[in-house]
């Protein structure tokens, strides 16, 4: 696989401060009724000053901290989180991981990320349950079929393994799918990425948190950044609900709250925050072993290892900071999925929630320096950044450490909006999860 080369050779966990997890340590601890497990991360008070302060302990912020420490030996780092780590979109997404994007920069970014996911449990010594169970993007109109074929050509030439499959094979992979030829949107085929899949979202945040903490990173929870201080064109630190913290560099990784935090430094952003909802069914015995995305009808579904069907769809149309969405968007999604998987009609919705996603004008992310020295921003992942956590952290850490973007990050700079050099993925699929 072409992009495999970008991935670091496998790292062994040589970090003395972290006790290793394994079946043996579990057995050992069982003897004492699990009373001796150490903390997965500390709960430190902020120091006066850090080399790098990362705002936002979501997956992207934590992964950035982890790679700063592990790849660039930058360890005087704090991650500041206003709530609990992993409680933002990282803790509320439908966990789809894929890399079969269309545009060159996206392919590079998401395939780097996906391949990092392959080894992440071992890298972090924390089982993040990466499950490359296979992902299908259904083709339900001729137009969609053609668009997917185009993507498949681009992916093949980029070294991303995926293939077009026909209806019969779709049915084989997803026995519960409606494969009728005369339904409203008959399945004409699908674009199948065998090593796309899911991971346990909380574990990704927790694994990176534990790994960063062990390398000396301070993760400071329940601490909200309220302003960013500057001297001339340079950042100097931040005011937080736990006092002022000095910082040589500040990296803002706050997803739906990006506009607000960047505004603290006087920087406007090409971002709108809207609510994206997801929901789960009651747990049932396995009925679907792959991830299915039906973009024409706006719905996607997979089944978690615990048994719930995990369902998501399109975002609301208006700005929203409340983590509560509107029913029509969701109704649209569920209706589509009942049509696509008729047996779910009798299953039941267990819980419904929303997250505030950061949408850019071209629906692609921003990984960038800014006009303010020492201020970096990583955002705009919108409805599809869970899959990008390892890759984004990897290239963002590199950008921060070297103060200049590498090949992959370069394409995602803020300057693209001024140049008209947008990266539009809606070309390939209406939904970009």
């Amino acid at each position: 696989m072409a992009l495999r080369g970008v991935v670091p050779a496998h790292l062994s966990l040589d970090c003395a401060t972290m006790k290793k997890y394994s079946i043996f340590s579990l057995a050992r601890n069982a003897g004492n009724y699990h009373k001796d497990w150490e903390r997965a991360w500390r709960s430190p008070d902020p120091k006066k000053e850090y080399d790098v302060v990362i705002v936002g302990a979501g997956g992207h912020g934590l992964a950035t901290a982890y790679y700063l420490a592990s790849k660039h030996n930058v360890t005087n780092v704090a991650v500041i989180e206003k709530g609990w780590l992993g409680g933002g979109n990282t803790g509320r997404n439908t966990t789809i991981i894929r890399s079969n994007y269309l545009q060159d920069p996206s392919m590079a970014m998401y395939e780097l990320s996906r391949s990092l996911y392959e080894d992440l449990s071992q890298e972090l010594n924390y089982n993040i349950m990466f499950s490359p169970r296979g992902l299908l993007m259904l083709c339900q109109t001729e137009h969609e079929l053609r668009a997917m074929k185009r993507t498949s050509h681009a992916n093949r030439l980029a070294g991303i393994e995926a293939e077009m499959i026909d209806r019969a094979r779709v049915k084989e992979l997803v026995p519960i799918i409606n494969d009728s030829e005369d339904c409203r949107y008959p399945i004409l085929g699908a674009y199948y990425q065998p090593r796309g899949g899911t991971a346990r979202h909380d574990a990704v945040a927790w694994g990176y948190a534990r790994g960063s903490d062990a390398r000396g990173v301070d993760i400071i929870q329940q601490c909200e950044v309220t302003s960013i201080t500057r001297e001339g064109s340079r950042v100097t630190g931040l005011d937080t609900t736990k006092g002022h913290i000095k910082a040589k560099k500040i990296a803002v990784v706050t997803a739906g709250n990006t506009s607000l935090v960047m505004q603290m430094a006087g920087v406007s952003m090409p971002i709108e925050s809207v609510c994206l909802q997801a929901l789960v069914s009651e747990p049932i015995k396995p009925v679907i072993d792959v991830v299915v995305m039906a973009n024409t009808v706006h719905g996607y579904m997979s089944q978690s290892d615990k048994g719930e069907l995990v369902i998501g769809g399109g975002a609301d149309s208006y700005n929203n900071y409340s983590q509560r969405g509107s029913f029509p968007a969701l109704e649209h999604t569920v209706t589509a999925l009942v049509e696509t998987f008729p047996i779910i009609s009798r299953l039941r919705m267990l819980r419904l929630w929303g997250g505030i996603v950061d949408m850019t004008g071209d629906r692609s992310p921003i990984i960038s320096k800014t006009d303010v020295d020492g201020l970096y921003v990583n955002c705009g992942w919108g409805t599809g950044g869970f899959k990008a956590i390892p890759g984004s952290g990897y290239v963002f850490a590199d950008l921060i450490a070297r103060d200049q973007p590498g090949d992959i990050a370069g394409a995602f700079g803020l300057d693209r909006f001024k140049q008209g050099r947008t990266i539009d993925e809606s070309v390939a699929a209406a939904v970009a999860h």
Partner: protein
Amino acid sequence: MLVITCPVCGIEGEEADFHCGGEAHITRPATENPEGITDEAQRDYIYMRKNPKGVHFERWRCDRGCGKWFHACRHTVSMEILGYYGITQKPPAALLKRADPLWQAHFEAQAKKAKSK
């Protein structure tokens, strides 16, 4: 689910009966003067958004009633709709007073610009 009342025709409906057209009062540079528009001005027009957490001004269209556009003033956390005004109008002072500071700055800057002309 938002419940919205169209200020043009008075019909009350649900958000599915309306269409949200995003942030209000975005100036299209070319309408004023098609010459000499900088790349920055073009970027600001197409991409830059206030995206406030608080009281916001936005555009809506009455899709299943009169088909007309109007302005709504809405809180982006509580979803409360504080008021409506015409699509060609500026926000009434009472609404502007409650709006996010970004909006107050916006109209102050506009007023300044108008004065200097």
